[in-house]
């Protein structure tokens, strides 16, 4: 009986998470404000870096850049993700809807998780645009090991969304939140970024074993921060 009750509670929890996520996605489908902003910003980052850092040899061919492409990919994803986080939580300030969510009987951690799922979705859409751009502008072999690429992007995106949502929620009522969010978020994301860069770099160099090591690292990183976030979110948003 207790097992069945836990299953029911689990299904209910996931329903609440999906209600929050679907609400964000539905609003975004109508306005597309966050998606356009994130995508435009990420594309500009890739374009600017491509002009700034690429070298051509005497024949006009792009010099091998497998080493720098992963870094630029994650910089673009991180900056676009930060923009998305900031905007997604700003939406909860308009009309003070975050308080409306906190007043409801759903577990408060479900609010965080629902927001994280929505933001991760936005980021994945942006990545679907910029990964081909990086392949094109940097002549980077991004699609040699698609499973490694997908796993790395999914886990890295999930990590940014999880950690970012906690801090964005915490800073929601802070005056300098747009400045503070990257200041508090980026140092914590350094291990994730290193793992993401190393994984894709190794993939490009034909070293999938190394990539899988870093993917396992990302799994552990995401799991640790997910548990910490679920545990602490309520205490961070309730004064």
């Amino acid at each position: 009986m207790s097992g069945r009750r836990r299953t029911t509670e689990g299904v209910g929890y996931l329903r609440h998470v999906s209600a929050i996520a679907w609400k964000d996605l539905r609003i975004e489908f109508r306005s597309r404000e966050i998606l356009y902003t994130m995508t435009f910003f990420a594309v500009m980052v890739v374009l600017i870096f491509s002009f700034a850092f690429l070298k051509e040899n005497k024949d006009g061919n792009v010099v091998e850049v497998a080493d720098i492409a992963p870094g630029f990919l994650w910089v673009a994803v991180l900056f676009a993700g930060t923009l998305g986080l900031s905007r997604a939580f700003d939406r909860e300030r308009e009309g003070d809807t975050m308080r409306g969510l906190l007043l409801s009987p759903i577990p408060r951690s479900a609010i965080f998780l629902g927001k994280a799922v929505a933001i991760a979705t936005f980021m994945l859409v942006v990545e679907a645009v910029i990964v081909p751009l990086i392949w094109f502008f940097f002549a980077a072999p991004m699609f040699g090991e698609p499973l490694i690429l997908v796993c790395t992007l999914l886990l890295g995106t999930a990590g940014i969304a999880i950690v970012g949502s906690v801090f964005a929620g915490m800073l929601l009522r802070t005056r300098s939140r747009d400045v503070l969010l990257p200041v508090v978020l980026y140092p914590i994301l350094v291990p994730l970024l290193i793992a993401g860069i190393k994984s894709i770099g190794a993939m490009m160099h034909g070293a999938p074993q190394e990539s899988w090591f870093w993917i396992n690292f990302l799994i552990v990183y995401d799991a640790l921060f997910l548990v910490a976030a679920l545990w602490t979110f309520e205490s961070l948003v309730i004064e």
Partner: protein
Amino acid sequence: MKIEAVTISKLTKRFGRHRALAGVDLTLRAGRLCALLGPNGAGKSTLLGILSTLMRPSSGEITYRSDGKEQLAGAELRRQIGVLAHDSFVYGALTGIENLQFYAQLYGLDQSAERAAELLTKVGLDDKAQRRPASTFSRGMTQRLSLARARLHDPTVLLFDEPFTGLDRAGAKALTDTLVQARADGRIVLVVTHDLASIGDVTDHVVVLRRGKVVFEEEREQSFSAAVLKDIYHRYTD
């Protein structure tokens, strides 16, 4: 499960070195409309924030006694509380109906579409208005939508924080009627407001806060008139 009384005991709230509430003792009962008065910075919104579970007290206790005599807490408690504040808690990009359906989902309510439409009609939002994005609503319409949202889950405790702000006379009258009906239905109603005219003749419990302390409290069988409220307010806050 219905909340019959809310007992606040030695409630304190500090924000850093600033003490917003300094040992508040108060009991709110079902079937009573309590006006919480006081100057700006007295701690009224802080008290409301703690009562609604949006804030934690620094010390002290709040007991929500249900008709089964047990103490309510957590999700069960939040299911019993409805809040109407100056901010609407609604999403501008969603229509009136969509906002209520979303909140109905969070409160686990069945037949959310029907209930939402019924409530919106009750608060005076017609079918056309219900299907417009909430960002196109006037202040009065937004307040009505917000009222529908606060009542959607049939709460037994209704907390209103400056609900009359920005309302015209008709809107204020409609809101006052809602407060009276809620009291008549046996709910616990607490209103924070500076609009003494709107709550005159409907309030039967008055509390005045000043610098985080209760400086006046009285319950009557008959309501306090607006003139009496004004006199109490000036006597204890000037």
